[in-house]
């Protein structure tokens, strides 16, 4: 367990033509691309980075939808924190800290993919303890969460084990070594951060 917490296209359907209001489609300006790419843009209806008219990919020079890394500061900050701990060596805190394992940092990134959908006041902040384990924490008057990402026990096919202590609605909640597979959040954790 870590000792550090950081509380802080439209298809006709039998005579009916349905038209979706202008989703930010990047189809216009994509005519230089092969059919699969044009279709991809039509299906996706999302425009990537704002480019000039010189772009044959998506360039019409119009305002593009903001990318998540500019629209979601929390996610960008958490990902940057994880990245800052990649490839660090033991003793990174100037003392006897352990180097974080890549697989627990990977699992922490996967957790972010779910936590980002939680209400803002339930999104925990990430940190890495001197034991090298990533942890998430949130400390509010009515909500407390401290979650540690632990390496999986081989040969388990999960990506990590999660242990957390929480206080929600006055209730103390403790779960230990819950397998996390990456493709879904453990239901009890999902409920805890108000995702379900």
């Amino acid at each position, binding site marked *: 367990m870590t000792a550090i917490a950081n509380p802080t*296209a*439209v*298809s006709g*359907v*039998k*005579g*009916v*033509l*349905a*038209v*979706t*209001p202008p*989703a*930010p489609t990047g189809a216009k300006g994509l005519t230089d*691309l*092969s059919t*699969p*790419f044009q279709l*991809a843009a039509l*299906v*996706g*209806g*999302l425009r*990537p*980075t*704002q*480019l*000039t008219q*010189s*772009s*044959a*990919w998506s360039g019409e*020079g119009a305002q593009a*939808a*903001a*990318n*998540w*890394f500019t*629209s*979601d500061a929390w*996610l*960008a900050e958490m*990902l940057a924190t*994880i*990245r800052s701990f990649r490839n660090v060596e033991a003793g990174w805190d100037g003392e006897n800290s352990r180097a974080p394992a890549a697989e627990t940092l*990977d699992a922490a*990134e*996967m957790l*972010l*993919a*779910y936590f*980002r*959908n939680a209400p803002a006041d339930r999104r925990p902040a990430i940190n890495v303890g001197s034991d090298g384990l990533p942890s998430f924490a949130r400390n509010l008057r009515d909500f407390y969460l401290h979650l540690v990402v632990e390496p999986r026990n081989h040969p388990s096919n999960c*990506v990590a084990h999660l242990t957390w202590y929480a206080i929600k609605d006055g209730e103390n909640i403790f779960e230990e070594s819950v397998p996390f*597979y*990456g*493709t*879904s959040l453990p239901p009890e954790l999902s409920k805890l951060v*108000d995702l*379900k």
Partner: protein
Amino acid sequence: MTFDPISSPHSIERCAATITFSENIPEKLARTLVADLSKALPKGVSRAATKAFKFDVATGVVTTEGDIGEIPATFKAADGLTQFAFAPNFISWNTQRYVRWKPFLGQLDEFFGSVLEGILGSVSPQSVRLEYADRFNWAGDWTNFDVNTLIKANSPYVAPRARASDRQWHTHCGWFEKVEPFRRLTNVAVEVADLVGPLTPTVGILTMMQDETNVAGFGNTSSDELNREFIVDRLEDLHQGLKKLLTDIIVPAMAQKIGLTA
């Protein structure tokens, strides 16, 4: 000067998965599935309003309708950066908020799982497609721009004439090949363009792979095998294939920087 991948842990600007069916989903079934899906949306996801008009072929009369709640249906996450589309002959999942593969696949399965079960009882998947748009922004300007620090020298995916250009250029290529009993279409597009604002160089790399079933000369897959697990298995295989493809396009140092070689 160097290239910066567009986000911290990777360079993925957009990721999309599309499953196309051999024929249109029966209309009544499709409406039922969309209605059921609309009633049980994940938190933050909403159905995009659909305006429609009806054209009566027999009389030529055109009437307008409000939100008809029919297919094609589009669902959006609250920030609009993730979309789910349900059309008569395909479903797609498209996000600009890609973080990692497993959550992407898991959320796709969570959202479309029950819908897929319903669809696959009636029609079979004809193709499974996965595509990534990666972006790398140059830290300098056109005077010191050097694409060779991103794209491998003599890359077979880049036309030499295009690459020789001093300024903006783009190149596309695509091919079919046999992968297991499937016909796989691979497309690569590389584009050098200007970012709006500072007018600094940016490089976009679009990679797409699509596995098509029961194509003459490539092999057969029984309808029993074309189930939900088949789709997940194909997506996993395409994901691995696209990772390798991008590794073959960009220089090793960048591949390592964005975690492709981890």
